[in-house]
């Protein structure tokens, strides 16, 4: 127990160091290119003095860059991300509202994909080099190489434009929700974007899992389990799969960590009102507080899920040494 605690504290400290470092890189990169006021003025000749003043006050523009970074960091540490230039709303609140819409798609897509990948990979790996294996693997490689947005475009063309079954954009109907229920209406809007995300994740996870499973199934302890008279199903799902899924944890952690970061593409295909769309509009509007805020949140998520991945390793794999 002491070992785990010590390990946790060490990883936590390193994670904080990571967040600090990355936030500094981001801050300096975005501020080194040009200071926000100059950029804003260059791009929006008609910007209001009020907005400019707000930015100036937020950034303490008279101070040198490193001081500005520390001040900004101080605000962020208190969860104060500032006020959006384009909407005048607090950035934190906006991120929460739009982020929720993104997670509504991403979380089910990852979980669904994991389940399907386990099934596909098991079928393929058990019958290695069979037609089934070849079929599953071809489909997975195909799906893995099909750019997500292209799949989205195809889905929209077929199911929204030609067949007219699902809506092509948005998360809710503007008027007349489907069957009078906002819940059903929301679910109905989710189908296509969810499919797009799930297909890509499933394909990639299947490729990874199948490769690991094939490796594990070749191991002596699998042969030993079979030689002990355990049924094949038990050997594959209990003994092999648990071992095969361990290396996939890293990828799962990245998928979860990047939920907001990969959103811009999905959300611009389906005009989905989530964090990705928010970020794109923030960049277009040069809404510095929003850009910095969202980048920071994404970094924290990525680091956080990396930390969780490490923890999961400790819990699942007894071989991990804690020191």
């Amino acid at each position, binding site marked *: 127990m002491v070992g785990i605690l010590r390990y946790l504290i060490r990883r936590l400290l390193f994670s904080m160091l990571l967040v600090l470092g990355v936030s500094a890189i981001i801050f300096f990169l975005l501020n080194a290119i040009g200071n926000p006021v100059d950029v804003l003025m260059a791009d929006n000749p008609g910007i209001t003095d009020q907005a400019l003043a707000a930015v100036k006050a937020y950034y303490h523009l008279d101070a040198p860059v490193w001081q500005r970074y520390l001040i900004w960091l101080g605000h962020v540490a208190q969860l104060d991300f500032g006020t959006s230039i384009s909407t005048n709303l607090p950035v934190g609140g906006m991120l929460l509202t739009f982020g929720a819409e993104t997670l509504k798609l991403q979380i089910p897509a990852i979980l669904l994909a994991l389940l399907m990948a386990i099934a596909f990979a098991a079928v393929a790996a058990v019958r290695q080099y069979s037609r089934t294996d070849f079929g599953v693997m071809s489909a997975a490689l195909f799906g893995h190489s099909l750019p997500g947005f292209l799949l989205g475009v195809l889905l929209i063309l077929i199911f929204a434009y030609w067949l007219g079954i699902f809506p092509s954009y948005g998360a809710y109907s503007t008027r007349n929700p489907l069957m009078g229920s906002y819940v059903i209406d929301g679910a109905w809007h989710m189908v296509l974007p969810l499919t797009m995300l799930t297909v890509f994740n499933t394909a990639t996870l299947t490729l990874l899992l199948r490769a690991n499973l094939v490796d594990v199934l070749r191991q*002596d302890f699998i042969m030993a389990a079979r030689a002990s008279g355990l049924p094949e199903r038990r050997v594959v799902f209990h003994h092999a799969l648990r071992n095969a899924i361990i290396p996939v944890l890293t990828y799962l952690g990245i998928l979860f960590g990047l939920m907001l970061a990969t959103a811009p593409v999905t959300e611009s295909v389906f005009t989905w009102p989530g964090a990705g769309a928010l970020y794109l509009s923030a960049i277009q509007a040069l809404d510095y507080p929003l850009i910095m805020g969202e980048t920071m949140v994404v970094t924290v998520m990525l680091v956080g899920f990396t930390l969780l991945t490490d923890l999961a390793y400790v819990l699942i794999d*007894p071989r991990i040494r804690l020191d």
Partner: protein
Amino acid sequence: MTDVPPLLNVRNLKVHFFTQAGVAPAVDGIDFRVNPRETLGLVGESGSGKTMASLAVLRLVPPPARIVSGSIEFQNRDLLTLDEAALRDLRGKHVAMIFQNPAYSLNPIFTIGDQLTEILRWHEPVSRTAARDRAADLLRLVGIADPLQRLRQFPHELSGGMKQRICIARALLCNPALILADEPTTNLDVTIQAQILDLLAELRDRLRMAMLLVSHDMGVVARMAHRITVVYAGRTCETGDARTIFHTPQHPYTRALLESTPRIDHDYEHATRPTLRTIGGRIPNLATPPTGCRFHPRCAEATEECAQLRPVPFEVAPGHSVSCLKRGSPGVAA
């Protein structure tokens, strides 16, 4: 001994590898039998097919290899005709296996206790606690002093010798009639090997088990086996009592094998440059095995016919059979 019906009788076993490059006859006619309470040493070098033959007994030959033909009778049942359910009942319960590398033959992410009780509970309707007690008893039986603590540990926390003891305990869980031991001490140090061999010999006698001991080490086989079958390149060369094989070997390969091994109980005259007898050439590639007798390219006694005809086992003395045209074996065109 010979009138006792054998416990395991393998006849003309053929296991071939089906690869993109073609069919490789890795095991191409191996015969051996194990009598009740007897230990048979199956001796051969790498590529001799000895491991494949032992896996075939449990019908666990891994793809792309397949059992092509032959018969495997265990307790008068033909194992090649059993269905999956009957096979599951056989494996672990009546025939159990010990693998070469104890480091890899335990699942790294489950505790020893979980792995042992799982097998027991799959074969017998016992409660969790009863299974745990039996597992602990077995660990004590294989010479582990603190079984309850070991049951809670993971494989990586144990030494190689300890892991092999646990693998032996796993094999003994259901009191099998036959143990297949595939090079059980090859990856262990000599002093640990001695401990494990002693343990195996003691348990085998105490529990009245038969054993198929697969090994390349003549010393290990001499120590353990009652009878010996020598295999080369997928075929049986010679079968007989341990004494017969060591003292009056007939097959040229068996002789060469014995004489090419340096011996710890022999003084070599270093002043006069000692030499070992050698077998020339190299172990054949089984994708393109030699014609006729598979040993003929490396055999000092080989003649024209050895390259043409395949020798059939021939009984030179009661219980001692040899597959060599030079020792009276009839040859068949192959």
